[in-house]
């Protein structure tokens, strides 16, 4: 049996766990660990420029690959800087293991240098956390952390490591467990068969069905099952912001995103439906609009791995707790059985009628039928940038985004045909997420096109990572929509505050992004004319080994539409342009 120090155990456990990258930043409390990494660890470490970026990069890696992202930070400010990224991962159920240094055991509670109560601070935003109290427990705790982070409803797990427990002199037996079992944690393995039968007969009896699928389908690797089920039944599918890509956007049955900035046809199909199959979605307030007016005629089947997500805001008629992939498989089997007994289900003429209604909505206001934005202005429209991006990358890129108007335009106009391609902070809405998340995805898939859609506001929240990209040669493409405002804030101020732009204007304070990018050793391209856009973007993506920052100047006054009318609106109540509403 091999004897290892705490630091060495961590380094070895990363290898044994199959970790591909550690995103981190050293400091006093983790120096023993960093020394062990230096001496022996085969897992590459990516030195970010700010701990928030470490968590977002690990998060982007996790979203793109499905494997837990790994973060290593020091105590005190290292730990607190990681908090925003941990909260981001928690809100979107992303598997992540965060190793945070802590002051020496005997100093805990004494306000020691760089001491902070990491377990306390992170408690509401983690799936679970551990404080190590004995070096010999480290392998088992790490195994448990990876198991908890990646099973059930995934989420971030924090391991707090007092410095003395990682010192190089105290060595203990190292034995990395192959499996762990927790008596208090057993995620559901299958859905309840009785409930699945009920769901099947409800779906087969539906006249105006809609499948409303969320991030759980992506995280639960159930895209294939969803596609088969939807196609077999010829049911329309809409996605939440988090679900995009699970069902192919280019398929006729896809209605686009739903919710606050959802498609007209998607929101209307939801509102008028008689049966909703909600899969791995959580009836978020950005989806439902006013809960009491939500889809008045609909019976709801709700499949989710997390019982707490079911009937939280909208009551489910048929709740099914279980992993979405296995539940959908079982559901499909029952549906096939029922259809063998009665091949007239679901009623084809009702469905035909339903589809012609949906097509009418789509023709009237669908975003993909023809441009719904005003092309009479001299500006490049932000929507055109995303359409061009989609065209140039053939809809196959990994696209991360920051938060704001550009995020909604990306969600509306980039047609994701595959899951895990769309990386965005949906739940927490974290500006600064985009660039580090793109780094994580690019490291995981070095041959793929990776774009970060951002704005001049968001990008400045983690722009220091241009330096990390230089050090490790991470040639992502930054598609920055420059409008000189905090666009989404401005939009709300236009719509609700009579155009009083309180602190949403940058005036003449913005840097020359091309020069800034060049200062980091990358390539910058500025685009101000629509006629240059496509060529410039092609050039950017042709530069396979360069990080390219595209500084694209767009219409400063554009708004995102459709937009739910709130408060007191229902799913179908929307602004369709600055002047037109339902």
């Amino acid at each position, binding site marked *: 049996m091999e004897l290892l120090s705490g630091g060495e155990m961590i380094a070895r456990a990363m290898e044994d766990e199959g970790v591909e990258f550690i995103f981190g930043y050293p400091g006093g409390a983790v120096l023993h660990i960093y020394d062990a990494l230096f001496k022996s660890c085969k897992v590459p470490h990516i030195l970010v420029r700010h701990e928030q970026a470490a968590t977002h990069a690990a998060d982007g890696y996790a979203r793109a690959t499905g494997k837990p992202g790994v973060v290593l930070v020091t105590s005190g400010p290292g730990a607190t800087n990681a908090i925003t990224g941990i909260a981001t991962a928690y809100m979107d159920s992303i598997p992540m293991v965060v190793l945070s240094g802590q002051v020496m055991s005997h100093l805990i509670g004494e306000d020691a240098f760089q001491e902070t109560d990491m377990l306390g601070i992170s408690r*509401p935003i983690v799936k*679970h956390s551990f404080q190590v109290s004995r070096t010999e427990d480290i392998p088992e705790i790490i195994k448990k952390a990876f198991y908890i982070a990646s099973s059930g409803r995934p989420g971030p797990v924090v391991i707090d490591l007092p410095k003395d427990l990682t010192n190089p002199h105290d060595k203990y037996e190292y034995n990395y467990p192959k499996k762990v079992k927790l008596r*208090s944690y057993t995620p559901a393995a299958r859905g309840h068969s009785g409930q699945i039968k009920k769901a099947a007969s409800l779906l087969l009896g539906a006249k105006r069905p809609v499948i409303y699928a969320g991030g759980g389908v992506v995280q639960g690797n159930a895209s294939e099952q969803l596609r088969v089920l939807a196609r077999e039944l010829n049911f329309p599918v809409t996605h939440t912001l988090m679900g995009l890509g699970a069902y192919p956007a280019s398929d006729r049955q896809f209605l686009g995103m739903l919710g606050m900035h959802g498609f007209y046809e998607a929101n209307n199909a939801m509102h008028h439906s008689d049966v909703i199959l909600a899969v791995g979605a959580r009836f978020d307030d950005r989806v439902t609009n006013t809960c009491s007016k939500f889809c008045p005629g609909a019976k709801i089947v709700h499949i989710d791995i*997390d019982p*707490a997500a079911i009937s939280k805001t909208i009551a489910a008629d048929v709740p099914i707790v279980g992993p979405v992939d296995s539940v959908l498989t079982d559901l499909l089997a029952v549906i096939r059985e029922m259809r063998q007994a009665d091949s007239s289900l679901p009623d084809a003429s009702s469905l035909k009628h339903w589809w012609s209604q949906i097509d009418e909505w789509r023709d009237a206001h669908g975003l993909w039928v023809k441009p719904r934005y005003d092309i009479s202005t001299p500006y490049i429209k932000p929507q055109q940038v995303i359409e061009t991006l989609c065209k140039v990358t053939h809809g196959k890129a990994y696209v991360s985004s920051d938060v704001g108007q550009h995020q909604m335009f990306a969600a509306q106009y980039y047609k994701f045909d595959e899951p895990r391609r769309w990386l965005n902070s949906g739940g927490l809405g974290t500006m600064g997420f985009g660039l580090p998340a793109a780094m994580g995805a690019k490291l995981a898939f070095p041959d793929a096109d990776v774009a970060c859609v951002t704005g001049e506001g968001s990008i400045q929240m983690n722009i220091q990572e241009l330096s990390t990209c230089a050090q490790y040669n991470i040639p992502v493409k930054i598609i920055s929509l420059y409008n000189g405002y905090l666009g989404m804030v401005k939009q709300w101020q236009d719509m609700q505050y009579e155009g009083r732009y309180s602190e949403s204007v940058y005036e003449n304070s913005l840097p020359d992004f091309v020069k800034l990018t060049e200062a980091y050793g990358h390539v910058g391209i500025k685009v101000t004319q629509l006629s240059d856009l496509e060529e410039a973007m092609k050039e950017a993506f042709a530069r396979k080994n360069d990080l390219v920052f595209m500084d694209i100047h767009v219409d400063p006054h554009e708004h995102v539409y459709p937009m739910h009318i709130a408060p007191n609106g229902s799913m179908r109540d929307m602004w369709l342009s600055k002047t037109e509403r339902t």
Partner: protein
Amino acid sequence: MRHIISVLMENEPGALSRVVGLFSQRGYNIETLNVAPTEDPTLSRLTLTTIGDDHKIEQITKHLNRLIDVVKLVDLSEGSHIERELMLVKVRATGAQRAEIKRCTDIFRGQIVDVGPSVYTIQVTGAADKLDSFLEAVGEAAIMEVVRSGVSGIARGEKVLSL
């Protein structure tokens, strides 16, 4: 409606703070709370009372179940159960009042557990409303200090909350 939620959880550092934190984080109230290890020292039993409609209680139990440290839980108010709380009351007891308070204590099947020249310390156990009634009977004027343990409870009959 008032509910008594009884939780079997890992006796680990931080477990209690996760439970208590959940309540403040999600805007639920804790009326009473008590916690102690069970016959198995690796497990703790936590009992709390909270007020809420069925929807809220369902959310509370689901979120509690989601905590990794929580092994099992039961809403005791859903079935027949025994509820007990222990209370220690220090009262001013002088002159004629001494006999009156003694009588009152006997009626409530309490015990005087400490005696001073002008004070009694009384122990009363029972359901929470019985303790409320005792305090009312003794009267606010006489009461110097009240310490209540918070509610503990157990299901009637064969039903047990264990591993």
